């Protein structure tokens, strides 16, 4: 049931009503499981190639061979072709997975940790602290993500770490809101009352009781946000604010390759497809996770289903 709760701050007690399961719904869940499995496999492939890049990649991704530049994909030493400086695209793709995934994972981790902290503290203690924290979240939400990232990069300088910080900070709001919503729901529950009656302090209650219950939606949201972050990194690379060369990321490979769309289209198409498939995989995997962890969550993870998935903030 779609309620106002999904969109704004307050939780909705009507959430307990479970959806019906008809034949059509079971079929859909099955398809979801298959596509989720496919998503999981692709994610695993991406992660593995990122981890084992030095062993998988046939060549040094930064080694230039100016006399072999702009070769199209062909059987031979450069199966995916070469770029403007004669660097092997397959190797750059494999190494690119490293940075793209690293940026994705770390940024989301930053956002999740800070966001969850803010949501927990605000939701649990309420009052002035809550108002303050939620104001901060509102301010972050009112700032278009790209602009915030550009401003942070202008202040801190370029480079991988600052990029992750910039993207991470801009991604805090959905996490903060999600956790806060969960906390508000849980706060009134019996077991929490019981724990407090027994004398458990705030930290303990938050840490041992509330937090574990928020983990499932948190995990789902994180998975879905990774896809958003990978796309954001590519936009920032396009604007010239991403990782400095010669480090390959899928994002800056696509950005550089747009100049060659007519003369050597494979340079941007190959990493573009890689981004698409990986983002798709994360989305499908996230969907599947959500179905698996709690079917009731569908639509109620503080943001409507699908909106959290790569949407909302870019």
């Amino acid at each position, binding site marked *: 049931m779609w309620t106002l709760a999904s969109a704004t701050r307050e939780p909705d007690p009507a959430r307990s009503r479970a959806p019906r399961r008809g034949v059509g719904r079971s079929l859909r869940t099955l398809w979801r499981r298959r596509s989720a499995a496919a998503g999981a496999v692709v994610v695993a492939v991406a992660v593995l190639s990122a981890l084992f890049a030095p062993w998988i990649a046939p060549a040094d991704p930064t080694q230039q061979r100016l006399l072999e530049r702009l070769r199209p994909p062909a059987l031979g030493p450069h199966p995916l072709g070469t770029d403007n400086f004669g660097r092997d695209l397959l190797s750059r793709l494999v190494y690119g997975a490293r940075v793209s995934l690293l940026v994705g994972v770390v940024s989301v981790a930053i956002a999740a940790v800070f966001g969850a902290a803010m949501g927990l503290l605000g939701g649990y203690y309420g009052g002035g602290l809550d108002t303050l924290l939620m104001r901060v979240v509102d301010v972050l939400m009112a700032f278009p993500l790209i602009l915030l990232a550009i401003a942070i990069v202008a202040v801190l300088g370029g480079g991988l770490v600052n990029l992750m910080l910039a993207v991470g900070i801009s991604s805090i709001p959905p996490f903060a809101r999600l956790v806060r919503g969960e906390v508000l729901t849980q706060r009134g529950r019996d077991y929490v009352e019981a724990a407090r009656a027994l004398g458990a302090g705030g930290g303990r209650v938050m840490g041992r009781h509330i937090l574990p219950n928020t983990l499932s939606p948190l995990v789902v949201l994180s998975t879905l946000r990774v896809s958003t972050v990978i796309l954001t990194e590519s936009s920032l690379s396009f604007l010239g604010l991403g990782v400095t060369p010669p480090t390959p990321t899928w994002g800056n490979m696509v950005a550089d390759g747009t100049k060659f769309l007519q*003369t050597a289209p494979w340079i941007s198409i190959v990493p573009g497809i890689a981004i698409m498939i990986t983002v798709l995989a994360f989305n499908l995997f996230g969907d599947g996770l959500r179905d698996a962890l709690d079917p009731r969550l569908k639509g109620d993870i503080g943001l409507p289903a699908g909106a959290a998935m790569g949407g909302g903030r870019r």
Partner: protein
Amino acid sequence: MRPIRWGALALACVVVVAAATIQPAQGQGRPGPRVIVSAYPRDFRNLDPAHIPGSPDYQIAMNVFSGLVRYKRDSVDVEPDLAERWRVSPNGRVYTFFLRRGVQFHGGYGELTSQDVKYSLERILNPATRSRYRASLSIIETIETVDPYTVRITLKAPSASFLAGALAFRPGYIVSQKAVEQLGDRFTFAPIGSGPFRFVSYTPRQELVLEAFPRYFRGAPQVRRVVWKVVPEESVAGLALQKGEINHMIVRDPQVYRQLQRDPNIGMTATPTTGWWEFTMNTRRRPLDDVRVRRALAHTVDRDTFTRTVLEGLGSPAYSVIPPGMIGHTDDVEKYPRNVQRARQLLAEAGYPSGFRINVVYEPSEYAELIATALQQWFREAGVDLQLVRLEAGAWTARRQSGDYDITISGTTRFDPDQFLTEQFHSESFPPGGNQSYYGAIDHLIEAQRTAINARERARILVEIQKKVALDVPFVPLFNPVYVTAYSKNQKGHAANTAHWMTRFEFVTFE
């Protein structure tokens, strides 16, 4: 739904096939007859000759204004423009210019007289104007209007570059005194000159329009109207040119050049420029303070392959601080041909057998990033680890002016040695000035060439400068860029002028 679904699928297939095979549609949004529509990546900022910041504005100025003299159509030599002829006194300090009669300003601002000449030049010299070109005219001592058509300019000392470096260039454009006094600040985007085209309109961030001036003293140009559109991505401008939405552009991106080369409907004129791209080494930093190290790094550079491949031929290897086409240029300097072994040898001699790590700080404009990427590979072959530090405009300026870098990359275009020797190699220009290498060994030579009125003497001094700089190698010139003017085939008259790679539309005709 079945028929609809198949229909949708069929439609999708048709679109895909069409996209792959149909030639670009002609005719949509084409410029009118005798109209030029051009594209430029940056927006205009100031059209006032006293303040012109750079290329897009200079393009407009050279079509809207006239000076006492101007560059010939395809060389850096000067020819009469507003002045029919001139006389130079034997001591080289007094120039007397005899103006044409009946030259009209745009907008009904009357005839151009010696009073306007005096006003224009003095305006730039006036500190209150805060003109960035004040220094280039500072050699002037007095300006007299002998009569309405005669101007006498007395210099403080003889200057070899007065005509070509100052009067033919931006500060030499003559403006209407009446117009400036009337319009004040609005003159920035309402320039009144006496050139072949008059300014019509400017829509910020979008377009600027000029129209032919029928009362131009050389006769109305054939081109009726010129429109410049602001298009940040050069590859998009290239597509627009091929499609016919625009019919003129300057090409600097090697890939756009490559793509346009294949198009039989596009004509191109390549202009070698008197510009250069180089990397500069901070001689105050270790290990770059050792000339052997600098020579070693120079030996790693592979100009030929770079210009042939990455630049797609849009540049020729450069070895000397003064580019070809500029007075005094010589190729007879120490060249440091590519020799990685020699590089390693020199590094070992200097005490760095296993190399070292340095950084290169740059702003990613035009070729800077291509150069930085190539440098990293070349240096690596000699064992030097180059860290790339890419900064955007604000941060880059701050860093450059504080002297906090090992190497920087930049590109410049100038027309006379005086326009850059002091700024880039004199010890009075150490950062925050433009002397990024902290080089100070040719101060006396720079000052000498400034006053050498005899062209041969000046050339001799300039040769000496080039040889010395090549020996000390505080910076390594890489290539002289070639800019390409691309236009639709029905245009004629585009000349390759190294003085400026922009187009003066009075020479363009249609067939």
